[in-house]
């Protein structure tokens, strides 16, 4: 120890250690402060202003921006559309993803399990924009879906799903399904084989084992997957714009408009914070529910 050869007293060593810790942490957290925390603070400040304080405009505080939902009833419709999109997307991801995750965890093993796992998570690290764009090729009139349908049934009417509510949902489910499979897989893979063997030796059949053991024990993954999907989907704006066209007016696109087109930054900021509050409430409630679940086990 360095204190033994007398160069540093224990107290000095402690001070030096603290200094090292601070020096290691400072760059990362200063950067996050400059780029994330101060901006969020600035936006909160803006949300209480009557107009953005550029030029020589005086600061005028108001709470009006948060009353937007009362003053502009169309926003309630928009919010409802966003929530519907969130519910449909999350529900369909759960419906499709949970069985896939259980199949991956219980019906495959070894090398093929690794490869399949990688195949499922790979697309969600490729560009989301490119994936949404891909769907326009499939869903448009005269697109691949239309073409395939007419190969099978030449007299069928043409299908043009692009620029519709279902198109938005399909694109979002495609974008977020890997999250759901990932979180459910982690739960399903952690189930102890002994439970299943015990149930089987006691005479339980496969559907019973599925309903009484595999499904309940995969639920935590389902819940965290649902949160991971619902939160960003409510805030999505690129998918509704590209796949929804004129139908795709969501909270995300309205907020984007305030910053890019209408330049009503205070209103945009207030809408963002309203959405953030909803997100935080969802996180708070679900983490409490989750910890209660885990606490009981």
């Amino acid at each position, binding site marked *: 120890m360095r204190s033994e050869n007398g160069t540093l007293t224990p107290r000095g060593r402690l001070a030096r250690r603290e200094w090292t810790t601070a020096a290691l942490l400072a760059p990362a957290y200063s950067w*996050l402060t400059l780029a*994330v925390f101060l901006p969020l603070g600035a936006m909160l400040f803006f949300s209480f202003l009557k107009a953005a304080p550029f030029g020589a405009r005086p600061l005028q505080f108001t709470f009006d921006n948060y009353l937007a939902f009362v003053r502009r009833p169309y926003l309630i419709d928009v919010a409802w559309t966003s929530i519907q999109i969130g519910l449909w997307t999350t529900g369909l991801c759960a419906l499709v993803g949970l069985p896939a995750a259980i199949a991956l965890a219980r*019906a495959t093993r070894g*090398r093929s399990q690794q490869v399949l*796992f990688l195949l499922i998570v790979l697309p969600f690290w490729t560009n989301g924009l*490119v994936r949404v764009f891909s769907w326009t*090729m499939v869903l448009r009139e005269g697109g691949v879906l239309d073409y395939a349908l007419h190969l099978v049934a030449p007299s069928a009417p043409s299908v043009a799903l692009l620029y519709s509510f279902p198109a938005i949902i399909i694109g979002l489910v495609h974008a977020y399904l890997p999250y759901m499979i990932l979180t459910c897989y982690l739960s399903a893979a952690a189930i102890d084989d002994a439970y299943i063997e015990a149930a089987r030796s006691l005479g339980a059949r496969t559907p019973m084992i599925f309903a009484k053991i595999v499904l309940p024990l995969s639920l935590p993954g389902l819940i965290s997957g649902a949160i991971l999907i619902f*939160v960003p989907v409510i805030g999505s704006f690129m998918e509704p714009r590209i796949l929804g066209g004129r139908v795709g007016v969501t909270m995300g696109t309205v907020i984007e408009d305030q910053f890019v087109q209408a330049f009503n930054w205070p209103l945009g900021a207030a809408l*963002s914070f309203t959405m*953030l509050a909803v997100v935080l409430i969802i996180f708070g409630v679900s983490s409490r529910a989750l910890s209660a679940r885990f606490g009981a086990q």
Partner: protein
Amino acid sequence: MIALGRTYLLATIAFLYLPIAVMVAMAFNDSALYTLPIEPSLRWFASLAVNAPLQLATRNSLLIASATSVIATAVGAMAALALERKRFRGRSLLRLLLLPPIAIPWLIVGTAMLVFFFWTGIGRGIHALLIGHVALAIPYVVLIVGAGLQTLRADLEEAAMSLGSTPIHAFFSITLPPLLPSVLAAALFAFAVSLDQFVISYFLSTPGVSTLPVEIYSSIRKGFTPEINAISTIFLGVSSALVLVFAQLSHLGGKRDSR
């Protein structure tokens, strides 16, 4: 039941890959209107060679991703070291502060950056994009390098120091070598996060200075041309390759097969 499960799994994977395959196939289709059946052609890739705005955006994207990777890895690895190896008050709070950049929707973070950067005079452009991308990548780097540090023994470093090594020498000769795969994985991940980032770039770019995803988005909104398919195909290839290398480095496929 097992066979049914496997069939279902393959169907799900087909759903994930089919539209992407269609998009790639259309990049090689001669028709400007995406008419089927496909007539093979490389003309859309050839026309990329004379598309100056797209090339500029690609250069910006690569530049920002490289710089983000270097800065976020250095800064994030330092923070990971402190968070994993030092005991101090407020450690759990600092860990918690890593979550907002990951958990808050990008739309909100992006617009907040726009407001703040505009207000303070930082403005928009390459430097603003870099500040934003590094901030997004730091939490991931801390998590990845932190996970790597957890698998290493802390006492080896202390042993080296008790034998007379300086802390810095002990770090570079004892801790760093086995940590390198995690650091490399974190660097790659940061690169991928930056390369794929669209929402924040969208709010921080200017008409003259944008990144590839922003340029692709504005082309899509102007109208579909197979040129977008061609550049998307190249883009897709690059980011898939990055993820595969990352998976190799970090053993992403779950538990390693020890049977």
